[in-house]
């Protein structure tokens, strides 16, 4: 179900040019204070939310940039960050 993704350098491009990079989980946890639970949460766990989420993409067949966008998982379309506040 291809759709468009907006690369910050190249603009809106076909989704098949990109690789999904996972839900945005914030910064990598500090190894000093890390518990198995926190590590598992960071590595494996996901919100899988119905609606708008912040997520990483990589312009693999393009300029190679990593960036985040907001996407509505129920409609499978990119949305502006403002829609996220409206969704919550």
């Amino acid at each position: 179900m291809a759709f468009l993704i907006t690369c910050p350098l190249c603009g809106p491009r076909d989704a098949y040019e990109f690789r999904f990079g996972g839900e945005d989980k914030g910064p990598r946890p500090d190894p000093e204070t890390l518990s198995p639970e926190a590590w598992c949460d960071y590595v494996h766990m996901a919100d899988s939310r119905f609606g708008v989420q912040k997520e990483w993409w990589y312009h693999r067949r393009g300029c190679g940039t990593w960036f985040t966008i907001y996407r509505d998982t129920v409609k499978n379309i990119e949305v502006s960050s403002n829609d996220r506040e409206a969704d919550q």
Partner: protein
Amino acid sequence: MFLKFNRLWKESPLKSSYDAVIIGGGLHSLAAAYFLASRHNIRDVAVIEKKFIGCGAAGRNTAIVRANQRTQENIPLYKEALDLWPILTKELDFNLMFYNCGNLNLAHSDAAMKAFRMNVATAQFHGVNSQLVDARQCKELVPALDITDRPRFPIFGGMFHPPGGIVRHDAVVWGLARGGAKLGVHIHQGTEVTGIGVKNGKVAWVDTDKGRIQTTKVLNAAGAYSAGIAFKCLGQRLPISVLTIQAMVTQPLKPLLHHVVSSGAYHAYANQTLKGEIATGAHMDPWPNYTNQSTAHYIKHQAEAIGEMLPCLRGVKFMRIWGGLADMTPDMAPILDGNVPVEGYYMDCGWGYFGFKSSTVAGKYMAQYVATGECPEMLKPFRLKRFEEHRLMGETAALVDYTANN
């Protein structure tokens, strides 16, 4: 001319309390409800379905069943599932159309043959009929295969699993629904679960758009929606990526394909339905979402793959394409657990694209789990904690990873 027919199950009013509430109206829910009622005499059960039963992956899958998995934890579960089809056909008095035509899995390299050798040994150890075959035997099984070195991925040999095949997925939905309803299970269609109430660390109620239900036991078996529901209702995060998987059928043809044929290298599988269509699938777009959308991109991919695998199908027309959801875990094994994060909450999810073949057996053991509160031996390896303990199962040789590095 038109026969009067009776409904398979009757509509019942939504009560304000049930002994157990099951979220979703797919195969896993209906199976769990049926086994709760038939094996544990727990009949005050509500199956809550947002739209209509079978509208999810239950009615969208390609209905392939087999028990030649890779690990010792998974094989016994799938073997029992395979053994259950004839038993349930009799017990439910419903023709599930189990067609055990056998599955042929193609290898396109020496490395793939070696991997199959281990799979076959594991299956045989567990009493499952699975055999290594060479390229000539593949050709004998499926004369339409090209075993020369012309195709993009030449055939080195394969793994043949005679007891697997195809089951009519809708029949399983209807048979289980009728069987459960006869024993007193309430099936509420057009009803959405919107929340789960927790009191003192225990499940206390389930909220729906038609009202609140008091209950102490809830089973989340909403297929690929389970992960989103767990997060929305309990804030529980799961190691699941929900991806759309697509399938399609060709125009009907004379019988030419007598087994299910699959190939990891082409990323495609195909079988001929009893109507004569070639049903084929496998593609997933690698970004999580909750749509059932299908793509032109995939029609092209599938035409190329099938045209190489079975050259006689070149030029045959695709008639229909559709999509459904698959909830993928990193180790390609499901999550079957209870009393996490709260007492009385049970989950049966993470089946990816293996949730049809396993639906009845998962329902059987989850019913036992819900009825007794004790995890059955069979389900112990599948608990959620395995991810934290780094005890992922080896159903795939490499971790499934939807991030940018593969």
